[in-house]
Structure formats: C-alpha cells, structure tokens
C-alpha cells in the first residue's frame, strides 16, 4: 500500500515538474522519466502489455521524437523564452485539466463492484482465434479494424512530416549526416546493441501471440535500433523517394486491408477470419505490419528531409 502511494506521488511529482519546466529539453527528460514510471504503474496493475507499449512507444519513441523537436526549437526558443501566456489563459487551462482529472477519478471510483467487463467473453472466444494472449486477440481479431486504422494513421502522420521538407530537398534524405567514427564510442555501442535489439524486438513480436507482446511493441524496438544505427553513422537514412522504402511502408497496411476485404468473400464480413485459418491469417498480417510500423516509426523520428537525394 505504501509502495503504491509512493509510486503515485512520484508519478504526480514528475508530471508536475515536467509541466512546470522552463526549458523544453528538461521537460522532455522529465517526460521520458514520467513514461518509465507509468510503465511501472502498469506492471503494478498487472497489465504488462500496456506496460510494454508505454515503455516502448509512449516513453521511448515519443521521447526520441520530442528530443529532435526540442533541438530544432532551441534556436527559436531563446527568443521566445520571455513570452508568457496571460494569467487568465493559464488559469483556464489549469481549471480544465483539474475538471478532467476529477471527472476520470470520479468515474473510476464510482464504478459498481464488480466493475462491468468484457474480459470473460474475450477469454472464452480466444480459442477460436488460436491465440493465447487475450490482448492480442482483442487487437488482431475482435477489434482488428482499430489496429488497421492505427497503421494508416501512422502512415498519414509520416506523410505530414515529409510534407514539411523545403522544395529544394523534396524527396530527399531525412536528418543531418551523422559522422561515424570508426573507433568511436557510439559506433561500439551501436554495433553491440543493434543486433541484440533486433533479436529482442523479433522475440517480443513473436511471443505476443501467447504472452504479453505483439507487433507494435516489437516494431518500436526495431525502429529504435534503426534510429540508433543512423545516429551512430553506421547507416545513412534512406531518401524518402526511394521506391523500396515506400513499398516497405505501404505493404503492411495494404496486406491488412486486402485480408480484411477478402473477409467479405470468405467469412461474411470485413476483417472476419475463417475459423480454422484464423491464426495463420493473423500471422500473415502481423509480419508485414511489424516491418511497416518499424519503418514508419523510425522515419517519423528521423524527421523531414534535409538533404537532397542522391548525395
């Protein structure tokens, strides 16, 4: 009990500090710390799948995005640091946040005992999907359409980021050129870490059918390893106009959509799987989706093109 209170206070404290931090970079550090603590909270609540997603996506990858954003903003920030929002605006924001928090807390505390839940039905029907992890069953079978839409949304976000490129480097290479020092520290860490990370990412993806894990978490680890290799200068970012890259990005959602549409013919509705082949179909979707998501996430962090293609 004391542990839970302590953890909750710590989460609130780090969250409050992140909001109050003056410097964007410091706030990003606080944000990543906050995400780590949230992952702990999820494990405490016996929700390891959510903890995995929080640790990988919510904290790690989003942190990477925010760091590159804060780096770009730093030049503009030194001029903007004296701007402060009017007090009335900040008060309104504080009141709104408090109301939302109070509302959510009220809903959670006023739930009837036992709280209504679909978990038993999810478990009972899992056998039909051939999966052993109910969370994956929800993501890839019961609510597969949400997952499909998520993959498309990520792709759209990437298109949005690419559209920020200035005309002269349109379709070019994202990010600055990172110098690889042949005997350097960064090269050393990348050469050791990246292969291990790829193995772990594949493991987390693969184990998702029977234990906490799955394609989004595995893909995030793969993406982080690719970005690490780019930052160490081991590989250069590909030009965004490269056909193989675009094919890789699109294949996942395309396969997902195709299998969904064939569901009309084979099993009666969109994204319905015929029962004996359910697991195979889910696997056929998951593998390309994992690769596509990994590429999408990595390119999201790499940012808009900054160098002309073919250099």
């Amino acid at each position, binding site marked *: 009990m*004391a*542990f839970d209170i*302590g*953890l909750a206070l*710590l989460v609130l*404290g*780090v969250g409050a*500090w992140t909001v109050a931090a003056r410097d964007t*970079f*410091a706030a*990003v*550090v*606080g944000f*990543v*710390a906050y995400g*780590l603590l949230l*992952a*702990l909270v999820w*494990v*405490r609540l*016996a929700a*390891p*799948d959510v*903890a*995995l997603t929080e*640790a*990988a996506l919510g*904290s*790690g990858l989003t*942190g*990477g995005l925010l*760091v*590159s954003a*804060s*780096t770009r903003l*730093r*030049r503009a*920030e*030194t001029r903007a640091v004296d701007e402060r929002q009017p007090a009335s605006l900040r008060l309104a924001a504080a009141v709104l946040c408090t109301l939302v928090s109070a509302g959510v807390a009220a809903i959670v505390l006023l739930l009837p005992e036992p709280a209504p839940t679909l978990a038993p039905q999810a478990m009972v029907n899992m056998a039909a999907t051939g999966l052993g992890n109910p969370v994956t069953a929800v993501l890839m079978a019961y609510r597969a359409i949400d997952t499909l839409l998520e993959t498309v949304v990520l792709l759209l976000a990437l298109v949005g980021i690419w559209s920020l490129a200035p005309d002269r480097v349109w379709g070019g290479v994202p990010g*600055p050129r990172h110098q690889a020092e042949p005997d350097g520290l*960064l090269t050393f*860490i990348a050469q050791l*870490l990246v292969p*291990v*990370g790829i193995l*772990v990412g594949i493991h*987390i993806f693969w*184990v998702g059918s029977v*234990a*906490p*894990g799955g394609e989004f*978490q595995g893909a*995030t*680890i793969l993406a*982080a*390893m690719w*970005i*690490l290799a780019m*930052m*160490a200068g081991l590989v250069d970012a590909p030009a965004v106009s490269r056909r193989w890259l675009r094919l890789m990005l699109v294949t996942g959602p395309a396969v997902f959509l195709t299998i969904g549409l064939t569901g009309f013919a084979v099993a009666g509705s969109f994204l319905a799987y015929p029962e004996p082949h359910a697991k195979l179909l889910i696997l056929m979707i998951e593998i390309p989706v994992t690769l596509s998501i990994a590429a999408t996430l990595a390119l999201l962090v790499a940012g808009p093109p900054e160098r002309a293609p073919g250099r």
Partner: protein
Amino acid sequence: MLGSSLKHPAMADFLFAAAGLVLAMVAAGLARILWGPGDADRIMAAQLLGTGGIAALLLLGEATNVPAALDVALTLVLLAAFISVAFVKGATRSEADGA
C-alpha cells in the same frame, strides 16, 4: 529449475519493500534534474532513474508474480539506451548550433 512456484509470502513482501526502497532513492536522485546546472546533470539523473526503474521493475515483477515484467525490463533497457544517445546527440547538436 531454480526457485519454485510456491513463493514464501515473506519473500514477496521483502522484494516489494526492496522495489520501494530503490524507487525512493531514485526519486531522491531526481532532485538533480531540478538543480543540475547543466543538461549533462539532467541526463545523468534520468539515467539513474532508468537503471533504478529497471531494478524496481524486476523486483516488482518477481514480488507480484508478473513474469512479463522481465520483457518490459528488456524493452526498457533497449529504449533507454536509444533515448540516452538521442539526448546526448540533441544536447551536443544544439550546442554546436550555437543556441
């Protein structure tokens, strides 16, 4: 193999307490994020939080019998490495830009 599924309840309590202790110490170290007179100190406090958090996570997973906590810890350590490099690159890049 080693250990058994029947955990002595006192063992679980001890591991729980240990997780709390590690977390408390890491929380104290976060003060360095508050004061730390430079980005380097802040990154260090975040690094301590990362390592301590992973230790607390492992202890917590063992205490509450959530075996997947181990996978979460693996994921965290990889992402922590990635994020640390991103932080250092971000800090050095903005310095080089003269911000």
